[in-house]
């Protein structure tokens, strides 16, 4: 392993152990489909709304605006 990455060994070994024990699968996803992208940097409008939809943050079908009092009166 490269000298620069030697101190990340613990993280590497942890993940590798998990993979070898058949606990998890690590796979590559192209940056374009990386959903966690919007949690690490500010994005452009189109990309942001695209990822927001993928996360499941979408307009609510039910209107929850306004208090109960408004509805009664």
């Amino acid at each position, binding site marked *: *392993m490269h000298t*620069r*990455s030697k*101190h*990340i060994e*613990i*993280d*590497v070994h*942890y*993940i*590798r152990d*998990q993979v070898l024990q*058949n*606990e*998890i*699968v*690590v*796979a*590559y*996803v*192209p*940056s374009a489909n*990386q*959903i*966690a*992208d*919007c*949690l*690490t*940097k*500010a*994005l*452009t*409008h189109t990309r*942001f*709304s695209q990822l*927001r939809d993928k*996360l*499941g*943050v*979408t*307009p*609510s079908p039910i*209107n929850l*605006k306004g208090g109960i009092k408004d509805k009664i009166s």
Partner: protein
Amino acid sequence: MRKFKMENTSSCPTPMITGKQFTTEGEKLQDPTMFRQAIGALQYLINTRLDIAFSVNKLNQFMSSPTIDHWRGIKRILRYLQGTIQHCLHIKPSTDLDLVGFSDADWATSVDDRKSMAGQCVFLGETLVSWSSRKQKVVSRSSTESEYRALADLATEITWTRSLLAELKLSLPRKPTLWCDNLRVLRH
């Protein structure tokens, strides 16, 4: 919105401008109480609106001595929320309960200390069940290193979620998959 006198402002499409760098330098706010109250309220909101998680977390780092620029950042988030006030996190029913995680890191983006931002999200079926957006505690010397840290965090989160599901007597149809966008990480 009413409290911060923002109920009649025009809305913004995103919570933060692309490429915007916030630093500790700049003209300090006279009264940081308002800033702190806003951050507190927004943090509560992250529970259901994780789309603002990154921007709120970013500004949260300047809680001790906020500047006018940081306040502008808060106003931008509020304006974004103004336009997307009806949005919320949807929990969808799905027959396939696969556990899937995404992890990403943005290397050395913090201008003041060069620490990296890490983001992760865990889906159970089609529903998002866990997420985080935070600054890593250690300075990473390469992007692979920061990606690895993020991936290890995600792996622990996945392991925890899995043990919780096991306790609920819910077995997963397939092995949990961790998605990562760094090829060097996968090569090791």
